[in-house]
Structures are given as C-alpha cells and as structure tokens.
C-alpha cells in the first residue's frame, strides 16, 4: 500500500437523496408511505472523483458555489462517508472549515479553548498544557477569562484559529479562514501556514480569492459540478478558472484523477 499520499480519493461519488417534498415528520412519512408517494431526487455532489495529495503538498481548491468543494472537504474530514469509492486519509486532520464551530458565547475564552480542543480530540490535560501558548498566539491574554460574547468577531476568529492550528495536525483543511481578522492577523495566519508547509504538513485550501490560491499553493484543483476538471500548477488552473468564469472560455475536459 502506498502510504506517502496524505489524501487519496478513488472513484468517489457522493449521492444525497433529496425528498421531492421535504418530509420531516413521522406523521407525514407514515401517510406518504401508505399512499406510496415517497419520491426522491438523487443529487450527486461528487461524481467518480479521483485525487491524490502527497504529504507536504499545499493544494488550492477552486470552483463555483455548489461545485462540491465542501463535500470534498467533508469526505476528507471524515464527517461524510462516500456513497461509492474509497477515501484514505493518513494523518491527524485539523479542519479550519468553520472557524468558531462550537464556540459558546456565555463561556469564557479559556473554557471555549478547552471545548474546542476536546472537539478536536484532545484530552483536558493536553489542552491545559497548550493553553498558555494558544492564548499568547491569539494575543488575548487580557480577555481570556471574559465570556466570548464580549469579543469582537475578529477576536473570536483569532482564538479559534489559534486552537485549530496549535493542535499539531498533519493535514490542515482551510476554508477561506484567512479572510477573517485584521491585516496583522492575516499576516500571522499566513506565516503560520508557511511554517506548516516548511514542517512538511499537508494543506488544502478552499478559496474564491484566486490571488490567495496563487500565493499560498503550488498546486490547485478546479471542481465543477462534482467533477475534477483541472489539476495542475496553481497559476495556470487559477487562470483557466478565471478565463472561464469571467471570459466564458470553454470548460476543459474532465480529468478522472491522477494515478
């Protein structure tokens, strides 16, 4: 088995079953069932998708809204099992998909750090050890014992990024997380991403900001209607995407993964 790939997707499909009419209640379900009127539409969020990312690569993921980028990340983050195909991920993952997920306004910064750490699978002892470094990095020493409902959105984002990136992941999934906070914080995030790359970590970055993809990633993939349509160096993929989305250039043929 090749273990050098950090992320490998083999012919992966994700199919959601969407009821024609939303049936949320048991009563309705029972009635429809009896009348045999349960209709579903199938929606394929990803189709026959192949991708291999080597450990240490930084890959940008671009595509329109609804193209399947989030589904791709959810597969890699292990929150969604594939409907068909195989997903193999080697290494600890830190998803920066939704910064601030699970943050609770009534709890203090410190309590939230403990909770965030636990969501990432860390023990209390481990989080206590990491606490001072996280707080220092987020520059929130003065506010750490205040409830975070008193924080600005930038402060909350700083705290969340500090936790998620301190947990020493092998694979970092970033979903436009770098667009929050002030300029100084963005530079810090950028530096930390750079440090990740130098430490040989794998980074996947979803962004609509093509500049960000070009600056941060050597390689980029373009996802369109659940398929991988381009895979190559970030400058040319970003250019092709730009030409297509702005200039109306023809879509390149589908690439079914790299073997």
């Amino acid at each position, binding site marked *: 088995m090749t*273990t050098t790939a950090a992320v490998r997707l083999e012919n992966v499909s994700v199919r*959601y*079953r969407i009821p024609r009419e939303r049936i*949320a*209640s*048991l*009563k309705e*379900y029972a009635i429809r069932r009896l009348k045999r009127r349960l209709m579903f539409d199938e929606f394929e969020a990803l189709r026959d998708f192949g991708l291999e990312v080597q450990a240490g690569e930084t890959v940008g993921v671009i595509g329109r809204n609804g193209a399947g980028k989030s589904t791709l990340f*959810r*597969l890699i*983050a*292990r*929150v*969604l*099992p*594939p409907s068909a*195909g*195989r*997903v*193999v*991920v*080697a*290494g*600890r*993952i830190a*998803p920066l*998909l*939704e910064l601030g*997920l*699970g943050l*609770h306004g*009534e*709890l203090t910064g410190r*309590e939230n750090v*403990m*909770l965030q750490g*636990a*969501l*990432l*699978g*860390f*023990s*209390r002892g481990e989080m206590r050890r990491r606490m001072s*470094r996280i707080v220092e*990095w987020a520059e929130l020493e003065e506010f750490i014992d205040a*409830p975070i409902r008193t924080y600005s959105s930038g402060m909350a984002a700083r705290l969340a990024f500090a936790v998620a*990136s*301190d947990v*020493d992941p*092998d694979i970092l999934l970033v979903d436009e997380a770098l667009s929050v906070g002030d300029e100084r914080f963005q530079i810090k995030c950028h*530096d*930390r991403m750079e*440090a*990740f790359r130098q*430490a*040989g*970590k794998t980074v996947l970055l979803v962004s609509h900001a093509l500049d960000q993809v070009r600056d941060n990633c050597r390689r980029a993939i373009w996802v369109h209607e659940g398929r991988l349509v381009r895979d190559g160096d970030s400058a040319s993929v970003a250019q092709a995407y730009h030409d297509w989305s702005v200039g109306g250039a023809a879509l390149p043929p589908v690439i079914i993964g790299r073997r």
Partner: protein
Amino acid sequence: MSSTGVTARASVLPVYDSARRGSRVIDEARALWSYRSLVQELVVRDIKVRYKRSVLGIVWTMLAPLLNMIALTLVFSTILKQEIRNYPVYFMTGAIFWAFFSQTTSSAASQTNDSNEIAKRIYVPRSVFIAASVGVGLVNLVLSIVPLVGILVVTGFPIHPTWLFLPVSIVTIVLFSSGVALLLFTFASRFSDIREMYLVLVQTWFFLTPIVYHPAIVPPRFRFALWLNPMYYLIQTFRKPIYDGVIPSSGLVAASFALSVGVFLTGWVYFCHRAEEMGYRS
C-alpha cells in the same frame, strides 16, 4: 520549536480508510472512549451555561425538586388524603429518580439539531452527545440527593445502611435511560416531531408510574399495567433502600438489570447502524 509554534512530529500517522471497516458497534464504542474528554467538556458546558447568569446558580438544581415536592405534598396528602407515611420522602425518592430518566431522554431527543451542526463539520462520534446528556443527568441526580437528605433530616427519617445499595440502582437506570436515549436520538434525527411526541408521552408515563401515589390505590384489575411498566421496577430499586430500608428482592434486581441491559444493547446497536447516514441529513 520554531517561533510560530509549529513542531515537526515523527510518529505513526492515524489512517482513516473509508473502505476498511470493522464492526460498527465496536468502532463506535472505541471512538466514544477516545473522545471521553469531549463528553466531559460538553457536560461542564451544559451545566455552566445553564447557571451562568443566574443568581442562585446551581442551587436551582436542588431547589426545583424541593419546590415540586412541597406542592405535590400539599395536593396529594391533604386533598387526596392518601395514607402514605412520610409522603415527602416517598415522593422525592420516586421523583428524583424519574427526573433523571425524563431529563436524560428528552435532552437526547432534543439535541439532534445542535449535535448535527457539529458532527457534519468535524469528525466526532455522535454518541458523545448522548453520553453528555446522561452525564448531565447524573450530575443533577447526585445534586438532588442533597435536598433529599435535607428532608430526611428535617422530618427525622432514618438513613438506612441500605443506601449502600443505591449505586446498583443508579447503574441500572443509567443503562435503561441510555438505551432509550439512543433510540430516541436515532428516531429524532430522522423525524423532527419525535421530540414533541416524546414530551407528551413522558408526561403521561409519569402519571402512570407510582411516583406521586402509592401502587396500592391502583384497582386490582389494573395492577397488571404496573408490571408492564419498566419504570415501576426501576423506581422500586431506588425507593426501597431509601424509603423502606430494605434491599430490593433479588428477583426485582435481576429483572430490572436484565431489562436495562437489553434496552441499552438494542439502543446501542440500532444507533451505531444508523449513525453513519445521519451525516447525509442537513
């Protein structure tokens, strides 16, 4: 260590392979164990958040059953003229045990949405949310023993050595409630009206269980209904050691334990087989 706080680490990488899967029932148990600190954090969060902006704070947990008890004592001992020796103790032993069951199960049924918000974005075994509901219930159960002891002292009721049996009763109710919670959570994540239906059901169930009244007032031809009610057995394993000062009969203990283990295993297996598809619901 570099100034940015990123360290290189040389260790065996954890590998996730969607094609390699063992038994779901065992995998989920392992995952729950490795996320035990999350369960702890969720319990702490729940309790802290509930009392964060209140003056009396955690005292509410102890006050609520006490106020309940006073109201029901007035109603049931003066108006209905039941002849139950030391009614406050009789009622409270049933009520706090019932409260554990009803709180744990309704909270599991209510948190399918919140837990889905988390579990569809970051990998956590979904059973942590049910374990957290049980954990919160246990904290409340232990806290409500404080006012119970208060009532015992005030009314001069003896504290029997049979209290030592209570851990067995608590383990039994934890298994039973967890099983029901797992089933409810699984149903409720498919159908949103399960929660409302359950809240009505649990209210009715409360009055069908001898908590506020004595089983002796049930007419003989309806007595069999008591024996069909699992909560009747379970409450006896709690009430007998405290109120009657006797250890429940081995038959009663064995029956309630076997029933609880059965419900728990059913809930666990069903939940584990449905947990994966919960990710497909948004």
